[in-house]
Every structure is written in structure tokens, then in C-alpha cells.
């Protein structure tokens, strides 16, 4: 069912954006629309939403699609709001919305959906074919309304769609914000009533709300799960979130830079709610989001009094309506975040908050539902909330609990967020550029691979320096094969041993449980412990031993009976390291072996993007080359032609070329560039050539170190260090070398003076 993805239909009815501007939920939209089909008749769809993942516009888009399609399906959308305080008032509002949208559809008058109409108005607007049953419904409502039986009234209102005659069509009800329904007063558990009424209605329906709550409600309502479908709605993928930022920024007329857009996606972890709110705030304040400073200034404003603040404040008020209790909660929550404790005692929270057991249960339940904490009864983990939530807690703790001066809190929040921005992006770029070992190992499923892919020593001896063709031909004739186990559970080592966080990233160290030959027996059970060791050179024996010990310790602590250690080093392992690991029975591979393995088992890998283009004015030349494939030579050859125009001597030209090659290699090797491009600007001046090499991504650690000179006495040691010479060479070969300040990545400006080279 892909019809909803097309743009064949008319404009929005309930939707707040056009179909073209609704990005990032195409598959989900198709899935919700499919729920309205004849094939899904009588089945409910529970839309389980991660907090702030955004579901309302998805349902409104579904509504618009079905409205404009004009089929036998009659769409009904109802969003619970905080304005309704009781289950009865919410149910009456539902009845009103149902009739209004029903009549709007039947009359094909979208504007009726937004009109302020009484029940009597609706009866008068009812088409002749519907008049009889609608009149009966309204009369019955008048009787039930004053019967003093709230439960009966709620059920009557919610059951209204079942009264639509079959000959007219099939109502398809979409209920949004089920978590709010659960909090209403009035002695009726509306959330549970909703599931009971619609679960037994024989109609298709959608119930959307926070994932932790909806499933609980479905169990409490004793729903027949055979008649329920589930759709999990998580944050947008990075690609979808980027598209969302682009679209919303254009719609809100907010000027943004590429760097700022990337930062928003990462800071808000792809949350459509946060991204949209933030860009709306930028429009309201008429702020352009060009630099990191622009973004973080607005972010801090938002935390202290904007949409973000109101969102979190509202949820906190809902959790603890009393101000003193709320302040105490902020204190406990923030101190728990700072402590990093993952298993805090709930009892200690109760004492500190001075709440009864029941009151505490309610507070914990609400915090858990909104995923501000993970609560499992006796213990609670408050470290899992989103970054904006933690930032909100921190500023409120300092302002409301510690009573610190507002100016100081604002200044600290701004400087902290500015300092965090490059690290946030660096983590993102590294993730993009690197292989996620979890993805690789998850694909292990009894494939047979050449054993040499797990033995760097043998691989190096046979294939180092071999072309791809030679390598694949050689691997094809390898006799010794290794059969991979079937992996059944793969997770980061950090989930087993959080201390490892200090030495590696989550996706670079993996514990994988599996079975050899996919035979589920004790004898065949095996656990692989896999880690990627960071090193620009071959990993030496000492480092290899340290890593082997780390992983072996994990195996011993957790009682893994049979385990296999596999270490991966970008440039492989020294002979001594390979030998030592082999004696331990451990596997070791370099990046090339890993890439071949990935290709052979069909696992996911980071893939660079390649694009080239160029432009320039009279004295300036700009070229963009993709990283890799010796493309630095294109830049070197270009600069050679330009330098000749300035009559640089051949020796100087060679120095410039070498410096450019080194700058390009540095950009390719160290930047984790998201677009895998090198931007090169050559500016010709009367007495000099200025070359600027830029790339997006991570700032190398040696940038700004002030290490500008290389003396001859240093050279002997340097010669034995093998790598990391690029910048030293550049500084020696060029007359002036300077890193320009950019928010994202690096920009290296190198100048060569004509007089120096001709002298």
C-alpha cells in the first residue's frame, strides 16, 4: 500500500503541513493507512511511541489522505488534550468531534472540521441519508447525559462510531494521546475504557500514545491481542531527521547552515517534536541558525523559558502538582543524574521526597511512562533521559533549588552547550565513518569464511600490498575455512561492564552469544568477545595483551564457558602481537580483513559518498574532491598548474604539492568526514599562493597544539614513530600554516611566498 506516499490528493484538512512537507514517516503513514483497509477490519493498531517521537501529524496526515480519497472509509481523528479534566468531558468532546468530522466527510466539506458547532447544529447539517440515525443518537445522548452513570455515558460516547449504518461506510477512528486519557479524573479509567469499547467494536482503529503506557493499558483492559497490531514509533533516522530540519527550516523561513542543521539533528537525537519546536522558536524570535553559537544561544533560551521549558515544565507539573514536592523532585532527579547511579533505591527517594508509598508510586509511574527514568520497583535509574531533559533539570536545579543567579546559570548553560557541541558532532561523525561491530557480528549465521580473515599474521604475509583482484583470487582458493556461529544475541560490552566506556565506544566492543552450527545445545554455545583497538600503526604486543585481558576478564566475571576473543586493529597487529594472540587462541584482523568479511557476509558498513565539482573567480580556484582513491593527486596536479603561473621554481612547486597531498591525507584519515569531501581553495596573490584545505568532521587532536617547528634533532626519533608526520611536513614545506576557526571540521590555510622560492 503505497498510495499514501504519492501527492495525488488535495490539500490538508487536519494536517498542519502539506503532504510534501511531511517527511520521515513514509513507511509508518502507509502502515497506518493500511489499518483502515477491508483486510484489517475489526483490528486495532497500537502505535507505541517513544517520548517526543511525534505521532500527531502522522495521524492527521492519515486523516487527510483518507478524507481526500473519498472511499467507504470515514476517517475520525481525536486528540486528547490537557484541557479536558474528566473522563466524561473528554468522552463528550469525542462524541462531538466524531459527529463533526463524520458530517464533514459525508458532505465533503473539510471546513466543517474546524467550525464551532453544537450538537443541534450538527443534526441540522446531517445529510438526509444520515439524519435518522444521527437524530436518534443525539436524543439518546440527551437521556444518558443526565442518567448520573458516568461509565455508561463514557461508553455511549465512545461507542458512537458503531452506530454508523454499514451501507454508509466504515468509520476508522484514530485516537491520539492515550496517555492523557489515563490521567483524567472522574472515576472512569478512560484509557482502559477506550481499549474495551474499540477492542470489541468490530471497527478498525488506532490508539497512539507513549509506548510504556499503551501496552500496560492493553493488558489491564484484557484486550484480545490476537486482534491487535503493534507499530513502534521511534525517533527519526539521521537521514530522515536531516530532511525534516531542511523542510521545517524552509517552511518557518529560518536561515540555517549545514553545520547548524547537523547539530540540531544530533542534539535532539532525531526527535521531530524537539526539532520542530526549536525551529518554530527560531522563527518567532527571528533568529538565523548559522553558527553553533546561534544554535546554543537559542537552546539555552528555550531551556529557560521557551517551548522546551514549557514542555518539560508541564510534564513535571503533571507528575507533582505541588510546588514544594516538585522542587524536591528536581533535586532528587538531578542529583541522581549527576551521581550516574543506575540502581538507586526507590525507598531512599521516598524518604527524600517525603511521599507516601502510593504517592511515590504515582510519581515513579509518570516519570517511567515519559522515560525520564527506568523504574523496576525497588530501584530506579535516572541517567537514561534525553540530553534536553537533563539540561532542563540542571538549569532548574541551579535556579530553583540552589537559587543561583540567573545570569550565572545562563552563562554556564551556554558555555557548557557550546563546549559540548563539537564533541556531539565528533561522536556522530565517528559513528558514521566507522563500522558498527554489532551490525557485523549480528550477521554471523553459519557462513564459511577463509580462516585467514581472522589471522592477521597469515593475512599480512600472503596479501599485504595485494590488489583487490589478487586478494579476492587468493581468498577464493584458500583451503582452510572457518564456520561462523549463528549469533542470537549481540550487545555492547559496555552493557556488561560499564567501566569499559573509558577505553572504548559502545559500538566498538561487542559481546555476542551464539551457537555453532545453529545447534542449540550447551556444547555448541559460544560467546564471541570482539573489540576494535584504536591505533594508527600495527597494534603492538603490550596493547594487544591489555585488550585480550580486558575481554577475558569479562568472560570470567560473567562465567562464559566457551568464548572466542577477536581483536580488530585498523592497521593490523605486530608480529609479536599476532603471535601472542594466536597463543591465547584469539583471532586478530585489520580493517581490510574486516571489510572483506563484511562484504562476504553481507553486513552493513559505512560507505563514503563521492562527488566532485569546482568553480572560482579570476584569482581564486575552488575544487572539491572526494576523499580516497588517490584523489589528492588531482589537487596536487591542479596546484602545479596554478603555481606555474606565478613562476614558482620546480622545487617550490614540489613542496606545495607535497604539502597539499599531506593536508588531504590528514583530512581523509582523521576527520571522520560526514560527506567524505575535501574542499580546496587556491588563491593567487601577487607574491604568494594561498591554499586552503577544508573538510567537515572531527577536529584532529594536534590542531592548535602550537607544534610548529621540526628540528633536525627531532627527526631521528620522529623517523621511528612512523606516522603522524603530515602536519610537521606541511609546516616545514610551506611558509605560513594556520588553522582557521570553523565550527565543524578543520580548515587549514597554507601560504607559500614567491620570493622565498625564487631566492
Amino acid at each position, binding site marked *: 500500500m503505497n498510495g499514501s506516499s504519492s501527492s495525488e490528493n488535495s490539500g490538508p484538512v487536519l494536517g498542519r503541513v502539506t503532504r510534501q512537507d511531511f517527511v520521515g514517516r513514509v513507511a509508518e503513514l502507509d502502515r497506518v493507512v493500511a489499518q483502515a483497509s477491508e483486510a484489517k477490519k475489526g483490528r486495532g493498531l497500537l502505535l507505541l511511541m517513544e517520548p517526543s517521537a511525534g505521532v500527531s501529524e502522522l495521524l492527521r496526515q492519515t486523516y487527510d489522505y483518507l478524507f481526500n480519497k473519498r472511499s467507504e472509509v470515514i476517517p475520525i481523528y481525536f486528540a486528547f488534550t490537557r484541557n479536558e479534566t474528566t473522563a466524561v468531558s473528554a468522552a463528550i468532546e469525542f462524541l462531538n468531534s466524531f459527529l463533526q468530522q463524520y458530517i464533514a466527510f459525508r458532505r465533503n466539506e473539510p471546513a466543517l472540521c474546524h467550525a464551532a458547532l453544537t450538537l443541534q447544529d450538527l443534526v441540522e447539517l446531517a445529510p438526509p441519508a444520515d439524519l435518522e440515525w444521527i437524530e436518534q443518537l443525539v436524543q439518546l445522548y440527551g437521556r444518558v447525559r443526565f442518567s448520573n452513570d458516568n461509565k455508561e455515558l463514557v461508553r455511549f460516547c465512545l461507542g458512537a462510531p458503531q452506530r454508523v449504518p454499514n451501507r454508509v461506510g466504515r468509520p476508522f477512528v484514530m485516537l491520539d494521546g492515550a496517555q492523557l486519557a489515563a490521567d483524567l479524573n472522574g472515576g472512569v479509567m478512560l484509557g482502559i475504557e477506550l481499549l474495551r469499547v474499540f477492542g470489541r467494536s468490530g471497527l478498525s482503529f488506532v490508539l497512539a500514545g507513549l509506548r510504556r503506557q499503551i501496552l500496560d493499558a492493553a493488558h489491564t483492559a484484557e484486550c484480545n491481542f490476537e486482534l491487535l497490531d503493534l507499530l513502534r514509533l521511534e525517533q527519526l533516522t539521521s537521514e530522515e531527521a536531516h530532511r525534516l530540519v531542511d523542510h521545517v527550516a524552509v517552511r518557518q523561513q529560518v536561515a540555517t547552515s549545514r553545520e547548524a542543521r547537523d547539530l540540531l539533528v544530533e542534539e535532539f537525537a532525531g526527535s521531530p517534536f524537539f526539532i520542530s519546536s526549536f525551529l518554530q522558536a527560531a522563527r518567532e524570535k527571528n533568529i538565523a541558525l548559522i553558527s553553533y553559537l546561534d544554535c546554543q544561544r537559542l537552546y539555552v533560551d528555550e531551556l529557560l523559558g521557551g517551548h522546551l521549558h514549557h514542555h518539560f515544565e508541564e510534564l513535571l507539573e503533571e507528575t507533582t502538582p505541588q510546588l514544594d514536592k516538585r522542587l524536591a523532585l528536581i533535586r532528587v532527579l538531578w542529583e541522581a543524574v549527576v551521581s550516574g547511579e543506575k540502581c538507586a533505591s526507590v525507598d531512599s527517594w521516598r524518604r527524600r521526597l517525603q511521599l507516601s508509598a502510593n504517592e511515590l508510586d504515582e510519581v515513579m509511574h509518570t516519570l517511567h511512562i515519559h522515560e525520564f527514568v527506568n523504574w523496576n520497583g525497588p530501584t530506579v535509574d535516572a541517567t537514561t533521559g534525553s540530553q534536553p531533559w537533563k539540561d532542563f533539570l540542571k538549569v532548574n536545579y541551579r535556579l530553583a533549588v540552589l537559587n543561583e543567579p540567573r545570569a550565572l546559570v545562563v552563562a554556564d548553560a551556554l558555555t557548557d552547550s557550546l563546549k559540548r557541541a563539537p564533541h556531539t558532532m565528533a561522536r556522530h561523525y565517528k559513528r558514521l565513518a566507522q563500522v558498527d561491530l554489532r551490525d557485523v557480528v549480528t550477521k554471523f549465521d553459519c557462513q564459511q569464511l577463509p580462516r585467514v580473515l581472522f589471522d592477521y599474521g597469515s593475512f599480512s604475509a600472503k596479501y*599485504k600490498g595485494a590488489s583487490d583482484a589478487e586478494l579476492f583470487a587468493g581468498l577464493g582458493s584458500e583451503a582452510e575455512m572457518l564456520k561462523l556461529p549463528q549469533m542470537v544475541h549481540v550487545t555492547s560490552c559496555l552493557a556488561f561492564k560499564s567501566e569499559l566506556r573509558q577505553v572504548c565506544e559502545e559500538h566498538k566492543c561487542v559481546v555476542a552469544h551464539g551457537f555453532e552450527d545453529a545447534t542449540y545445545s550447551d556444547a555448541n554455545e559460544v560467546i564471541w568477545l570482539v573489540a576494535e583497538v584504536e591505533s594508527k600503526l600495527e597494534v603492538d604486543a603490550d596493547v594487544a595483551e591489555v585488550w585480550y585481558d580486558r575481554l577475558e576478564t569479562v568472560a570470567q566475571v560473567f562465567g562464559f564457558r566457551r568464548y572466542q576473543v577477536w581483536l580488530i586493529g585498523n592497521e593490523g597487529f605486530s608480529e609479536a602481537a599476532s603471535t601472542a594472540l594466536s597463543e591465547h587462541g584469539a583471532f586478530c584482523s585489520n580493517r581490510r580483513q574486516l571489510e572483506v568479511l563484511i562484504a562476504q557476509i553481507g553486513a552493513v558498513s559505512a560507505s563514503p559518498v563521492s562527488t566532485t565539482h569546482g568553480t572560482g573567480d579570476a584569482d581564486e580556484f575552488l575544487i572539491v574532491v572526494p576523499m580516497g582513491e*588517490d584523489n589528492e593527486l588531482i589537487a596536487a596536479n591542479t596546484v602545479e598548474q596554478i603555481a606555474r603561473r606565478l613562476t614558482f621554481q620546480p622545487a617550490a612547486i614540489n613542496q606545495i604539492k607535497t604539502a597539499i597531498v599531506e593536508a588531504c591525507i590528514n583530512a581523509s584519515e582523521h576527520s571522520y568526514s560526514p560527506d567524505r569531501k575535501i574542499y580546496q581553495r587556491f588563491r593567487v596573490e601577487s607574491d604568494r599562493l594561498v591554499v586552503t584545505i577544508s573538510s567537515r568532521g572531527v577536529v584532529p587532536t594536534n590542531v592548535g597544539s602550537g607544534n610548529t617547528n621540526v628540528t633536525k634533532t627531532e627527526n631521528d626519533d620522529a623517523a621511528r614513530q612512523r606516522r603522524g608526520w603530515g602536519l610537521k611536513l606541511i609546516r616545514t614545506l610551506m611558509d605560513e600554516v594556520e588553522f582557521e576557526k570553523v565550527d565543524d571540521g578543520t580548515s587549514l590555510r597554507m601560504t607559500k611566498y614567491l620570493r622565498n622560492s625564487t631566492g
Partner: protein
Amino acid sequence: MDISSGAAVRSHCVGTTAVVYASDYLNKLTGEKIERECRRQLDSGCRALVIDFADTQLVNSIGISILLGIIDIAEKNGAQVVFSDVNNQTIELFDMLGLTRHVALAKDEREALSHLSGFDSTPTLH
């Protein structure tokens, strides 16, 4: 400049000396090809290596680091290494990074072979 790093490394043996020819751009890939060829020659019994840079117009730091690795390997195998026909710009780079302290340089292949035939004598440095 005609640069291709995909071709195989040319080499030949003169007695127990292997002459290996570097290509026009010495980078990681071409450096590893040279390393592989040198290892192969040493495993075959060669006692000295001449790496000829007559075609080499541009080198980068990764290529130079691999050359250092080759010198190490040769040392472990008790073999001498001589670089021949290195252009001035490349010598300048080798010098900057201290490579010239660990290897003899010869004007061309013939001089390199002649130097190695004299064996224990001090290498001619340029």
C-alpha cells in the same frame, strides 16, 4: 604526470641483491606493494635490497613510513638497503623525517649495486 598505483612492482635480482622499482607516486598502496616485494625477495634468499626511485615524482608521509618499515625488516634479516636515483625534493623529505640516517643513497642503480658489491665499506651519501 602519469601516475598509476595499480600496477605490479617491477623487480629483478643481481646475484643476491634485489632491485625493486618504486612507482611514480609513493603512497600507502604502492608502498605496501614495495614492502611485499621486498619481503618476498628476502624470503627467497636475497641479502641486499636496492629500491630505485628513478620514476618517483611524489611521495607522501605514509609511503615514507612504509619505507622505514622495510628498512626494519631488512635489518632483522641482516640485509643492507640502498635507495637509488632519488630526486632532490624527495631527498629533502627523507632528510626532514630522518630517513637518510638509516639508509644509504646512491646516484643510480649501477652505483647502488657497485656499493653493495663492496659490502662492508661505508655507503656513499648524497
